């Protein structure tokens, strides 16, 4: 496993094995070890609801209800309040080669503001990258859509992986999508184990 450097990144882009669209400023975005990506225009913002907590359970209440959709135009701004989580996505649509995975990190300048993103994207992924932004600062932060907020570091793996043809929860996304943690199949099993235990305690008491 090795980091792909500038010359090879450019070659991957020219051959369209790696697709990133749009790249608005190649000189500024493509670095020696990474490619800077921009903040997109669609957001899902956490908000207070009548439900006191987000319930990650099989058949639990919908997670969507805890988020509000909002959009901006490129160059517009959005405020992140302290400790608020905002789901965003990259402005760029990306298709990774089947033998390259990507490590996504906040650019240093944004890390220093108390914003952090650290995600791994699987080989073959296609769509805009999801950005889970949380403001860890005590002050609110106003971000500009279209600004270079994260850097993508590309690593080659030794086997080709077939991302598109395996079962995926997130495919060709162009705007942020609420967590589908509640759709994990094993939650069904875990729930039945929990309920089974409750019933057996109840029977013992009776």
């Amino acid at each position, binding site marked *: 496993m090795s980091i792909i450097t500038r010359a090879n990144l450019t070659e991957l882009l020219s051959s369209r094995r790696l697709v990133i669209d749009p790249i608005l400023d190649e000189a500024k975005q493509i670095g020696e070890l990474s490619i800077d990506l921009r903040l997109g225009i669609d957001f899902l913002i956490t908000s207070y609801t009548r439900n006191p907590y987000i319930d990650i359970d099989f058949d639990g209440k919908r997670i969507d209800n805890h988020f509000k959709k909002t959009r901006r135009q490129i160059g517009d701004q959005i405020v992140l309040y302290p400790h608020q989580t905002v789901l965003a996505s990259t402005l760029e*649509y990306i298709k990774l080669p089947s033998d390259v995975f990507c490590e996504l990190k906040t650019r240093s300048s944004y890390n220093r503001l108390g914003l952090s993103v650290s995600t791994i994207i699987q080989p073959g992924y296609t769509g805009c990258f999801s950005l889970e932004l949380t403001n860890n600062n005590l002050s609110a932060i106003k971000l500009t859509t279209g600004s270079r907020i994260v850097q993508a570091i590309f690593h080659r793996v030794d086997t080709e992986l077939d991302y*598109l043809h395996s079962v995926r929860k997130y495919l*060709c*996304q162009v*705007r942020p999508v609420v967590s589908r943690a509640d759709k994990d199949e094993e939650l069904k099993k875990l729930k039945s184990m929990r309920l089974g235990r409750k019933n057996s305690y109840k029977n013992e008491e009776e």
Partner: protein
Amino acid sequence: MTVSMHKNYLVIELCQLKSKLLELTDAQYFTNALVNYHQKLVALVEKLILSVISLSAEDYKRIERFKEYISFLQESLIYLEDSTLNITPYETIFCLEKVLKDWDETPPIIATSLKAGNYHFRGALSQNGALADLIQKEFDIEFSEELVQIGIPQLEVYNYLYNIVIYHEVGHYIDQLYDISYSTGNEVFYIKEDKSKSEEATINHLAEHFCDLFAAQYVGPLISEYLDFKAENDSDSESHPSTKSRIEVVNDFLNKRPNKIVDLLTNAIKQSADNRELKVRFEVPSTESFEEYLPHIIKDENELHGVYQTAWKIWRNRETLLAGLSAEQSFDIINNLTGKSIANYMIKQSWKS
């Protein structure tokens, strides 16, 4: 009712309008043009209140005019209020702005409404073109740009495959702007003495044919396919021609076959719309990018309007072109790729400028 009694009602309505307009002062509109328009409305309502208060008992004739101004303010307010939405379909508006530039020297400001109901596209001033002049003369406030509202049903706000319907609705706005169906209908009815339909039906039918042709210029046969889906068995009525004839007119236009209605409207457009012409204004991109799960890189405005046909082509053939995916997944992917193709073109244009 006396002038004094009218004044009581007019002042209430104007105060209500002023209060609502001021509430919207800090609203985040999606264009500066809407902010400027809003400021002009505030100035107008303030001047109207002063004018109404100063009306004398002899000013009875001016009452109707004030009612017209109030209607205009009310209509504009509805448009603006809906435009503070934060889920605006920018991609759709971008396509329509390009269409309007083809047809209007001073394209209107577009406001959006995403309430339940049908697709529509209408202007606040276009119902009464002289009103802007009157406002300027009387109050020295210039509404040089028309404010139009695109209505998209809330459910369809990000359904780019249905955007084709709005192209037909824009046709109604252009028809009104140049008086195309009305003047042509009169000519058919009185000069050519074709009285097979009532005068109103003649005008209405020509208006619908014009809008179908207008849409077909940009989205091609998708407009007739949509008509076939929505109104397959509809026959002639006072308001609409039969679906069969509407589809025939569109298909004749696209296939360059002779058709009397196409000829009639082509001539009318040349005369009324400053020599503009009905012509194909799209180029259909290949499905190659979508098949690779990638947005298409749109090269020009013809492809911008043509990308809807690419989307529909792949949607119709999803079982072979996107094999192994459920219908729901296929729709999401095609729709996302269509929206992103338009968005990327829009972002690149904006970055260059």
